[in-house]
């Protein structure tokens, strides 16, 4: 993903064999763009043509609250993934070949089990009589169990666990191609390690930061089962309400309208981030 974006952004696609993407494009058009497009259209056409569904959303505070929740939760998850994932990706990029392979393997392991199984595992680990609380109480770190699940903490832990690889891998892909001579040159010219990182390494790894951030944030927006299982009553996210509109009420119009609002949010995020990216690249 990171390399593909870099390639497209560098303007390399012009004059190259565009037809190579044709099969992927046709597949996307038929199985993604067409059905999603028709759902979005229904937000305007059902039950009659007009903006009624958007007005209904605006009139019900619950949808706006859930949308705000979605952005806040997804944003927090992205931030935690970035703070935790950056040093990890850096270590992988700096490691020797064997250690690097081992670390990448470790990052990929969570992909081997389903989201549902991992979410249930966290429920069992984090609950009041769960392993973590029992260990902490056994060590005398706390007297009473700490509530770590069925609240925001649980949602964040569960989502970060699932989404961390999507931050680490794009970061790693960029970092591994950063030429070490740049930082060496900066050091030889007297830059302190901190200054070296801030002025040289970080800007060079910025494309990875942006790719990872966009990927994690956008994936987080659609989360559904993790907040339902690990969250408290205040952690409802928008995907849960969209599902309810379709399955329980058959209200494709409102579901479509909620999807439009979400997509607009994602679109704006993308646009802003690519702008910053362009600025970074210009520097």
């Amino acid at each position, binding site marked *: 993903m990171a390399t593909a974006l870099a390639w497209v952004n560098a303007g390399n696609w012009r004059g190259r064999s565009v037809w190579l993407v044709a099969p992927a494009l046709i597949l996307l058009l038929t199985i993604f763009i067409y059905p999603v497009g028709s759902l979005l259209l229904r937000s305007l056409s059902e039950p009659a043509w007009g903006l009624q569904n958007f007005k209904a959303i605006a009139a*019900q*505070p*619950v949808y706006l*609250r*859930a949308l705000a*929740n979605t952005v806040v939760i997804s944003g927090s998850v992205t931030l935690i993934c970035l703070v935790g994932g950056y040093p990890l990706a850096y270590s992988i990029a700096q490691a020797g070949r064997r250690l690097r392979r081992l670390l990448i393997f470790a990052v990929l392991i969570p992909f081997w089990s389903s989201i*549902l199984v991992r979410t*249930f595992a966290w*429920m*069992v680990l984090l*609950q*009041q*009589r*769960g392993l973590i609380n029992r260990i902490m109480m056994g060590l005398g770190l706390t007297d009473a169990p700490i509530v770590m699940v*069925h609240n925001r903490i649980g949602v964040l832990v569960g989502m970060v666990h699932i989404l961390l690889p999507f931050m680490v891998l794009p970061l790693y892909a960029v970092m591994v191609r950063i030429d070490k001579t740049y930082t060496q040159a900066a050091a030889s010219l007297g830059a302190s390690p901190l200054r070296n990182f801030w002025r040289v390494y970080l800007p060079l790894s910025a494309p990875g930061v942006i790719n990872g951030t966009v990927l994690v944030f956008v994936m987080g927006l659609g989360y*559904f*089962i993790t907040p*339902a*299982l690990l969250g*408290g*009553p*205040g952690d*409802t996210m928008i995907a849960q*309400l969209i*599902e*309810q509109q*379709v*399955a*329980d*009420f*058959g*209200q494709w119009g409102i579901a479509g309208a909620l999807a439009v609002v979400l997509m607009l949010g994602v679109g704006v995020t993308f646009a802003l981030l690519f702008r910053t990216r362009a600025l970074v690249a210009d520097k």
Partner: protein
Amino acid sequence: MNDTRKHFAHCLIVDRRQFLAASGGGAALGLIGSPHSARAQGKYAGQKVVFASWGGAYQDAQKQGFCEPFAKETGAIVIQDGPVDYGKLRAMLESGKPSWDVVDVTIEFLYSGAADNLFEKIDTSTVDVKRINPKYVHEDGVGDIVWSYNLGYSRSVYKDGNYPRSWGDLFDLQKFPGRRMLRDRVSPMLEIALLADGVPPDKIYPIAADRAFKKLDTIKKQSIFWTTNSQSQQLLVDGEVGLGVIINGRLYDAVKKGANYLALEWNQHIQSVDYLVVPRNAPNRTTAMGLINQMTTKEAQAKVANLMALAPTNPDAFALVDDAVKPWLATNPDYANKGLLTDENYWTRNLKPLSERWAQWKLS
């Protein structure tokens, strides 16, 4: 994903013996065909019918209870599909070509689907609906099992006979301190809150929503809201909560798997029903009615009850149910005056606004 409604999908935990028994040989592919020699005979010889249900042990029980006997007796070929997903079913119906012929749906979907004209009428010349308790028969569907929301509790948390006995106790933080669990759904939670607040069962509908939400406010902070049945089981088994709302079959399942410290209260249980329906313009409508008729027999219903502790809708089936299972069944005559059947005529009109209010209440 329709995970919230897979109320009997025990599919994650099927023990090996059960699996081998259920899948025995070629049936593993979900295809129950009659042997070639018998194919020429039987009322529906060689005809296909696609049965969609919720997967796991539940669908296995239905397969053994009425799909296999139906195939054997009539020569029809029953194909198992699922899990049921209402979004998917609605999309199929919109395309005009549903790929399911018989679908197991919950009562609220039966009513909302009937209002949207999604189902074929039940053909009573083929389906002997007189076998079924009239409470569980609808123009568009026939009830195949009854299940219920009960008050479940842990005897390792509440001890020495100091057990909760009513929904009132669920809301009593003095007598039963600690965390409790509620179903994350407006129905049955409003009914439960009103019963707890002393509203008599025959005065529950129309729902006094303000009163119900006010009652729910009193335990909101101490409550965990569950969305999947595995979750409700997990919470009670691990002692994360001491009591709460749970589906009878799930507590039975937990006890059977060793959590013998869990118990179920039948006082004020809230009954619900699963129905078999035929989607509008289903390709094999005639055979579908035949399959539904097979489900109405006492033998079929007793088999499902014995396998899964799901209550029969055919009262005659009770004579064939194991004594060990009878106490777990919502339609047990002993519990007849203890339960409340949800009023789906009311909910069809009010589910949407009250669901929005429920979501809003949770967020506030």
